[in-house]
């Protein structure tokens, strides 16, 4: 079961201010795991160095049960940064900060890796603006204008090329080049309702976006054109994530389901139903299992979901029912720590919680699959001279 490691609440309680709200719409870890960003409502984003300092972690947390979580409010560490964005913050994204070996790897495939040395955080705001902040100093670097409504989600290309994608209630996605002072290089139109989320595949080839009209779009990150539409959800699709090897895509919807897709073929592989844990409860409340967020674990073997039925669920890739539950009220978002072991969640009241995540040693088979699928598409796998069972394994069809 996930154990609650720590809970952080915003410092000074604010007076009710009609211009701001207190929800934590987004949480994020920097890709190298050294920072945590928390949009704690009231237009403020906190940047906290990771790992958290001693004062936030209850002593001997392994022994504590969920009910005796230690809470602490107030003074943070001196290295924390507070970003006052001036409006409600909806979306957050850290730029990748590639370490020297992976820069060489990416440079082979993406010749435009820039010589940038700073880690930045992009914040998506209520009126459509995007503010870009330097993490080390908390300074505002850029203001990107273009969107006409809430910027709900943001995603940087994992290669470190400083291309940013934004998803907005104005029904468009936009592509920005931070190497050129935040120049808007493309507008992606096609969605009919609010775009809730965007995610770029780790191999940087595909962009996924999902919207209120129940559809999920896959775009090419090379040509910025639509590749395909994925139909299947029965209500607004609000969260999406690629597996670490880009071979799988998961989408979460208000229709209580998470669907797992093969992004190369558009096939639906699996549906994860979020039903009542206690069957004695009234069936007519099934709508309260609306999904809010879904994310993959960094080794690619687990999923975490946050739903309106007040549960954080952990799913193993090959099983039909969750392997663990944790109670959480008013959950809105979740994300894994990039090196595994911890899940961060954000709630409507502006709190964040950190939970223990299952630690698993990947089998050599899975490690090989991940290595291969990081550069092979489903069709390339099917063309390999290997036994059928091996193809099924490599394309994640062995459920």
């Amino acid at each position: 079961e996930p154990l609650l490691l720590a809970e952080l609440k915003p410092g000074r309680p604010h007076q009710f201010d009609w211009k701001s709200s207190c929800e934590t719409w987004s949480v994020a870890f920097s890709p190298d795991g050294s920072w945590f960003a928390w949009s704690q409502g009231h237009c403020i984003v906190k940047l906290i160095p990771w790992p958290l300092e001693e004062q936030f972690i209850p002593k001997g947390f392994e022994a504590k049960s969920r009910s005796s979580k230690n809470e602490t409010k107030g003074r943070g560490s001196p290295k924390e940064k507070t970003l006052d964005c001036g409006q409600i913050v909806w979306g957050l994204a850290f730029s990748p900060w590639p370490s020297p070996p992976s820069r060489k790897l990416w440079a082979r495939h993406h010749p435009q890796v820039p010589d940038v040395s700073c880690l930045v955080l992009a914040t998506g705001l209520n009126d459509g603006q995007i503010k870009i902040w330097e993490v080390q100093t908390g300074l505002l670097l850029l203001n990107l204008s273009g969107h006409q409504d809430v910027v709900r989600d943001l995603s940087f290309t994992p290669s470190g090329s400083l291309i940013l994608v934004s998803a907005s209630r104005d029904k468009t996605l936009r592509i920005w080049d931070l190497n050129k002072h935040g120049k808007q290089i493309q507008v992606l139109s096609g969605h009919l309702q609010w775009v809730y989320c965007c995610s770029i595949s780790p191999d940087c080839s595909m962009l996924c976006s999902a919207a209120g009209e129940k559809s999920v779009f896959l775009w090419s990150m090379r040509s910025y054109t639509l590749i395909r539409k994925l139909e299947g959800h029965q209500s607004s699709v609000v969260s999406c994530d690629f597996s670490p090897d880009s071979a799988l895509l998961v989408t979460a919807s208000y229709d209580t389901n998470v669907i797992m897709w093969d992004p190369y073929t558009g096939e639906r592989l699996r549906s994860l139903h979020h039903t009542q844990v206690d069957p004695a409860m009234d069936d007519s409340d099934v709508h309260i299992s609306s999904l809010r967020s879904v994310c993959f674990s960094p080794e690619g073997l687990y999923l975490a979901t946050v739903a309106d039925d007040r549960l954080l669920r952990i799913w193993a890739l090959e099983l039909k029912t969750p392997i663990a539950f944790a109670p959480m009220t008013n959950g809105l978002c979740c994300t894994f720590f990039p090196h595994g072991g911890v899940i961060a969640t954000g709630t409507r009241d502006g709190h964040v919680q950190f939970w223990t995540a299952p630690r698993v040693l990947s089998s050599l088979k899975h490690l090989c699959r991940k290595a291969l699928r990081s550069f092979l598409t489903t069709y390339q796998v099917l063309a390999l001279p290997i036994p059928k069972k091996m193809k099924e394994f490599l394309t994640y069809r062995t459920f």
Partner: protein
Amino acid sequence: MDGEKKTYGGCEGPDALYVKLILSDGHEFIVKKERALTSGTIKAMLSGPGQFAEKEADEVHFREIPSHVPSKVYALCMCFMYKVRYTNSSTEIPEFPVVPEIALELLMAANFLDC
């Protein structure tokens, strides 16, 4: 011990600390038994009822795996050590790096060895 040749703990008998893995072209690898047992297949071959002759002396023959791809064999041995080191460990587990060029052959070997 006759002093002429350095001998290891021995690969025979139930208390053997080491097992010998023999590849299809005769190359032999002596590996600590504890590590080799991370492979489900090797474990079965060493402890299963009767069918495998390997039960007599702790030797396992791999007729399908040649030694001409040393990187693959090396990776397998590294993997055994990695698993023993990090199984049930509470420290952060670094990912075992699999070089893309050998990933397919390594997958075949891993599939056969069930690890």
